[in-house]
């Protein structure tokens, strides 16, 4: 709870920075604030605190919060240059911090109201951020699309919550879980309907097919740093919420929703991977690839066994770290070449070995090549699904990841085999740090996954 308060205050402080003229030290203050939040969170570790029955700080929630905050620190470091060039930097920092508060709620909610509030607090700042390039038509389009589609999704979510309330008579996850068991037969339509609407709303947030249509345009149009934010923090927290909901409430009625999630996941894997192959723009490609990753993570939700919790956390971590690395490189390359097409990567390795190396590691990790984190994440997902008997799904997922290799390697090949000479791109220390940290983490998590997995034992 203290952590949440600190984080919210940090957001407020950021807003005042303009007025009280301490913009210069705002950035270090934010990083310190985030670190302090992480420390406060770890102090709650293992106590299993519940606040007002609204938030439940179990190990799962705390781990996800730490993950999100660590990603956020990396993200702030990576986006510093971009925001430094903007005039109203404090507003943006404030927005990001508030949206982080939303994601904290999303991973720890114990009540449907908190789920809803979390989704809204997380999303609304991001709608604004997506349009933060005010004179760029694509950025505006992106914000508009995201907002309208997001509003629809929220509607679905709310409707689903209402129907679940109708079916079980409660907003509390625990009561819903009990109600679901008792009243399963009393109001089957209401329960199933509620689950469908919840699924629709949440799969919009995680960009799973067929609710994915917004993602490519929004990813493409939004400024690269905001796209990175969406791909990492928004996605991870939405998935955490998704998993929490189904693990806590609907565990016992798996029959009601397993077929639906099966379909969503197959569709996401197929649509995401196959469409990504045909993209010529790197950002759109990453958007489709993120749809396919949503499909993979849905497999873990479907597995719903003791491995799944770890699988989903590990996948989020691996994907977030790799995405930060990939988007950092993408940002640098697109700044230098004035284009974020895949062609812009041609010949990158010649004069920028570090950028090419980092991009390669990130993409290989996303493609699931050992010994990188992404491989282990996929391995975990497959094992969890196998253990629950979804052999067919695993085979589809395997074929999907093969297609994934195809388009990830397009970029790698372009970087190394391309003849174009890219002038040397200058990297400042902070960017280098971000690149090295994310690569180191990607390799470390892959070689020694117990680094993360052992955390569950505390």
């Amino acid at each position, binding site marked *: 709870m203290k952590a949440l308060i600190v984080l919210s205050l940090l957001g407020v402080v950021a807003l005042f920075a303009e007025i009280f003229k301490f913009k210069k030290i705002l950035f270090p203050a934010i990083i310190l604030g985030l670190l302090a939040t992480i420390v406060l969170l770890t102090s709650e570790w293992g106590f299993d605190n519940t606040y007002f029955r609204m938030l439940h700080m179990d190990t799962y929630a705390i781990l996800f919060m730490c993950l999100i905050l660590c990603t956020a620190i990396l993200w702030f470091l990576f986006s510093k240059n971009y925001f430094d060039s903007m005039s109203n930097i404090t507003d943006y920092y404030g927005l990001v911090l508030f949206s982080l508060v939303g994601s904290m709620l999303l991973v720890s909610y114990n009540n449907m109201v908190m789920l809803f509030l979390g989704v809204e607090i997380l999303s609304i700042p991001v709608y604004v951020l997506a349009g933060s390039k005010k004179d760029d038509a694509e950025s505006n389009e992106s914000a508009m699309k995201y907002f309208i589609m997001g509003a629809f999704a929220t509607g679905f979510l709310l409707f689903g919550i209402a129907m679940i309330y109708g079916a079980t008579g409660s907003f509390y996850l625990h009561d819903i879980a009990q109600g679901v068991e008792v009243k399963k037969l009393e109001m089957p339509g209401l329960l199933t309907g509620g689950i469908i609407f919840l699924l629709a709303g949440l799969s919009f947030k995680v960009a799973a097919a067929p609710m994915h249509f917004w993602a490519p345009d929004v990813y493409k149009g939004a400024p690269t740093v905001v796209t990175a934010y969406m791909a990492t923090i928004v996605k991870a927290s939405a998935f955490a919420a998704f998993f929490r909901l189904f693990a806590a409430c609907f565990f016992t009625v798996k029959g009601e929703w397993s077929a639906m999630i099966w379909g969503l996941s197959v569709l996401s894997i197929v649509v995401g991977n196959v469409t990504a192959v045909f993209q010529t723009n790197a950002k759109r490609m990453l958007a489709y690839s993120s749809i396919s990753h949503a499909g993979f993570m849905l497999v873990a939700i479907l597995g719903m066994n003791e491995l799944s919790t*770890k699988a989903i956390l590990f996948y989020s971590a691996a994907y977030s770290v790799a995405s930060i690395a990939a988007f950092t490189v993408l940002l640098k390359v697109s700044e230098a070449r004035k284009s974020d097409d895949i062609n812009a990567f041609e010949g990158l390795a010649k004069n920028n070995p570090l950028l090419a190396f980092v991009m390669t590691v990130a993409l*290989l990790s996303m493609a699931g*090549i*050992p*010994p990188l984190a992404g*491989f282990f994440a996929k*391995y975990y997902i*497959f*094992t969890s699904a*196998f*253990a629950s008997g979804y*052999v067919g799904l*695993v*085979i589809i997922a*395997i074929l999907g*990841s*093969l297609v994934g*290799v*195809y388009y990830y*390697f397009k970029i790698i*090949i372009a970087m*190394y*085999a391309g003849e174009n000479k890219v002038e040397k791109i200058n990297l400042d220390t902070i960017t280098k740090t971000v690149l090295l940290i994310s690569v180191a983490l990607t390799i470390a998590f892959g070689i*020694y*996954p*117990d680094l993360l*997995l*052992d955390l569950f034992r505390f």
Partner: protein
Amino acid sequence: MTGIITVILILIPLLAGALLLITKGEQVKRIALAASLLELVVTAVALFKFNGTGEREFVINYPWIKSLGINFYVGMDGISLLLVLLTSGLVPLIIFSSFNKTIENPSLFYSLILFMQMALVGVFVAMDGFLFYVFWELALIPIWFICLLWGSGEKRSITFKFFIYTLTGSLFMLAALIYLYLHTDGTHSFSIDALYAAGRSLDAAKQAWIFWGMFIAFAIKMPVFPFHTWQPDTYVSAPTQGTMLLSGIMLKMGTYGLIRWLVPLAPLGVEQWGNTAIILSVIGIIYASCLAIYQKDMKRLIAYSSIAHVGLIAAGIMVVNSQGLQGSIIQMISHGINVVGLFFIVDIIETKTNTRMTDKLGGIRNVNPNFAVVFLIVLLGSVALPLTNGFVGEFLLINGIYKYGAWIAAFAGLTVILGAVYMLRSYQSVMLGNTNSVTEKFDSLNGIEKTILVIICALILIIGVYPKPLLDIVGPAVEMYIQNYGVNY
């Protein structure tokens, strides 16, 4: 704690490779060579300390990912040890063979070769399913980069095909391994013994699935017909050192996988589908040999000959008897030596004449008779003339296959005849006849080339005349293997 030797064998190339990445300048290749020679010395120490009881020796078993029952479990029996020996023997030759050339970005090139060596050794010593898979995949990345960065021709699409092909196979293997893992007793484990037990406890239909999941992975790597289509292009477009690594050592990952991971895991699967695998291998032998006859590009010709040879090895393994198995292991060694020799010879011809097309060459013997002699020795080794290394392996192999079925052995035996046809034909058109404008520039060999060729020829003859030491190393392990995992067709 002799197990430390195995770890050292993995660590030397890894550390040396990492060191090379931060080194610059001319000394890079010398460091690489020194590291690979050090590896050879350590292998020799291992050979010296090897008891040869047939059991796994030099074992180290250390928990890696505890929560999943994954261990860093490595060890070597005779079979593993011979393949490690092959790897650490060939890598110095491969590195040395590049000394003549100026290579762009040498530190990356040599460190990739060493990383590759690390992964190859890892594959051969891993006794944990997961570890095996990780090394298996790890071997792919460096060689892929070597082909992409230093290759020629349509390298983009070719390396792409290569990667996708092999990765497809690997993922099927991964699925099979996970499936087995979930069927191990109690808290699941990836240890080789647990996986063996799990595989053997499955019913015949499930073992058939395991069989195919694993077989496809190995068949693509070797490659066995009809999974071979990536191979000729890749061999041709890769730089010579890459081709040597691919054909000399990496191909043996597949055959080794058959021995270590396929047959013992799914004996009932082998009983049902082994016939199919053998027939595919034999089809591959004949098909590839016939294609080889028509090749004008020498590199492509050797690529096809490699498919034929490996087909025989695969068939010899799949019959699962002691002659077949012994033969296949000896032949893996011999083929590794011969094919590296052949590719090196082609490389010499290409550097000196700027072509490797048989129809443009001719009469090299007139200009350089010494070269003609060594080429002939390597060639005879490759076509399995008695007293060369190829003969020992192929004789045992055909003998083993004969025990399985006389007809199959007859067809498999065609490899020797057809091999003689395409090899001697290409020798004839390249070395004999009249010297033309292309080949008259063919000057004498330099020291590096001579050293490598003499070493290879010596190995070919020594193993051919006196193969006993090799057979002694591998013998007990093979006997034990057949006792435990023999299959009744």
